[in-house]
């Protein structure tokens, strides 16, 4: 037993700073990378692998790369030839959309960004109205801008749409439509009404049971066979509806997972206060359920965003499709790697942004302690 006298009276012990070794970068390295012989070995092994792989990639993509020029002769072929991407940039971004009309797409992008910025300003007071504009007004404006044919704008047929523009049209519409449809399906599946329940289960299981490729093939090949003679239905719209319903089925199951995690007492409390079924769902259950499944929802969004590349097989040229197409140009053969790296980079930027935003949202909406 220690002879030391207690330095503080009972109940009056002040807070002490923690031992310095457990905090800060050095402490972290010691605790996580060098805590045992096995960990030291793994740390060294990983360091060696990084040394083997990262420098050559940096060398290829940045140090030896060619950035400036106008044709393939400007490429030294020692590193990546980003001139290739620059040369085909317009096609990769807009597909075969007419040069003189590209401003319409850019204008729509700019309008979206300008309209969306105030949503991120906490003190902005008309968020509700702005959301209504973004969900209803904006799509109408964007539709007229993209399709044209009115207000003195030239009509641009959908087969000319392509590149990142097409990817964004399909994925944004899919994302925006799949959430509400999915919510309704999830509620329907939990409904007490047998007919509603059966319809929702049937719908969800049907769309979840078939691959997206099948959906796209059916929409482009089979569906027109059922249409009456002479009736024409735009291929892009058919594909869009297919993608929407497909992702809505997935979304429904994600939302249902959230609904099941909400205790029954919440519904009872809301109903006991006199709230109707829809108000109970809108004001009490859904805000909690959706918050719980943000990771699942964003997961589905990201999956959908990348799945849009499948529209290539029905002859729609999205970002990846356009990159593959320009890769077959006889003047520019042999630059596939640059193309795919660029596609991967663009997809990664979008998906990573969604992921980060969802994490921010989770933090912001966290109210439990």
């Amino acid at each position, binding site marked *: 037993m220690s002879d030391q006298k207690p330095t503080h009276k009972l109940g009056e012990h002040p807070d002490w700073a923690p031992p310095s070794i457990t905090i800060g970068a050095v402490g972290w390295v010691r605790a996580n990378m060098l805590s045992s012989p096995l960990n030291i070995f793994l740390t060294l092994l990983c360091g060696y692998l990084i040394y083997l792989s990262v420098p050559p990639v940096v060398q290829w993509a940045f140090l030896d790369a060619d950035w400036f020029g106008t044709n393939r002769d400007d490429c030294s072929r020692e590193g990546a030839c980003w001139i290739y991407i620059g040369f085909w940039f317009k096609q990769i971004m807009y597909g075969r959309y007419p040069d003189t009309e590209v401003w319409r797409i850019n204008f729509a992008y700019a309008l979206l960004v300008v309209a969306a910025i105030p949503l991120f300003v906490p003190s902005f007071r008309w968020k509700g109205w702005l959301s209504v504009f973004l969900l209803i007004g904006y799509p109408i404006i964007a539709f007229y801008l993209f399709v044209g044919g009115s207000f003195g704008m030239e009509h641009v047929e959908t087969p000319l749409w392509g590149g990142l523009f097409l990817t964004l049209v399909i994925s944004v519409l899919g994302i925006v439509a799949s959430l509400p449809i999915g919510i309704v399906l999830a509620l329907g599946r939990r409904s007490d009404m047998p007919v509603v329940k059966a319809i929702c289960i049937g719908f969800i299981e049907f769309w979840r049971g078939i691959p997206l490729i099948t959906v796209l093939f059916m929409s482009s090949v089979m569906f027109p066979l059922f249409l009456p003679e002479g009736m024409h239905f735009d291929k892009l719209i058919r594909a869009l509806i297919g993608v929407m319903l497909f992702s809505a089925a997935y979304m429904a199951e994600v939302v249902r997972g959230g609904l099941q995690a909400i205790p029954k007492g919440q519904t009872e409390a809301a109903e006991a206060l006199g709230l109707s079924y829809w108000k109970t769902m809108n004001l009490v259950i859904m805000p*909690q359920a959706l918050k719980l499944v943000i990771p699942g929802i964003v997961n589905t969004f990201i999956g959908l965003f990348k799945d849009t590349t499948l529209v290539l097989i029905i002859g729609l040229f999205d970002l990846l499709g356009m990159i593959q197409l320009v890769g077959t140009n006889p003047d520019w053969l042999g630059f596939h790697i640059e193309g795919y790296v660029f596609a991967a980079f663009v997809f990664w930027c979008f998906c990573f942004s969604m992921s980060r935003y969802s994490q921010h949202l989770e933090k912001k909406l966290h109210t439990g302690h």
Partner: protein
Amino acid sequence: MSEIAIQAPTKEMTVTDDVMINMIGVHKWYGEFHVLKDINLTVHKGERIVICGPSGSGKSTMIRCINRLEEHQQGQIIVEGTELTGDLKHVEQIRKEVGMVFQHFNLFPHLSILDNLTLAPIWVRKMPKKEAEEVAMNLLERVKIPEQAKKYPGQLSGGQQQRVAIARSLCMNPKVMLFDEPTSALDPEMIKEVLDVMVELAEEGMTMMCVTHEMGFAKTVANRVIFMDEGQIIEENEPNEFFNNPQNDRTKLFLSQILSH
């Protein structure tokens, strides 16, 4: 069960002849299980009724039938002249007038305390937001936690949460309050703060039905105590008689178990 010291009611609590709730021959089954058997009960305006009984005796089910959180299958339940039927309009009408407090509080964790209180007045009573907030703040004063208005339920203690839950029900200005074991999930030192609020409510003339094991509350506040077992009302009497002179053997057994320590 130990008895918590209750602040004695200072005002005289009066019962009127107006019928508030009328249950006539009510039966209910959970599948094959006959959970409520021929319940007949009339509650007058201003009454404070305590319902006790062993677990599984159907006491919670009975009061949950009154605002149709549970559906009865036979008999009639009439609240303030409106009969509970499958008609959703009637159900919503009755729920507006009947407040309920749950064992596990059931506050809405995604809303601040103030928003918890104003939700129903704004969306059901169509009250302007400002007015609803004034009413809510007054009620928070009454349950003695106005300083918590901006916090979230997860930041409050159990006793505070239950007081918020009571205030939330009161925001709808109900004519009857149902309490479903309001103190069973609380630590002993928090039970008193909730019971005090309930005593004050009784003093103000609120019609109350309360499922509880707090016999101290039953003795000081109730004007009638009902004992239930196996889905039936076995005995009902005014508290003095009920505790000192129980008639039925099952009541005696129950009271001996509950009051022996």
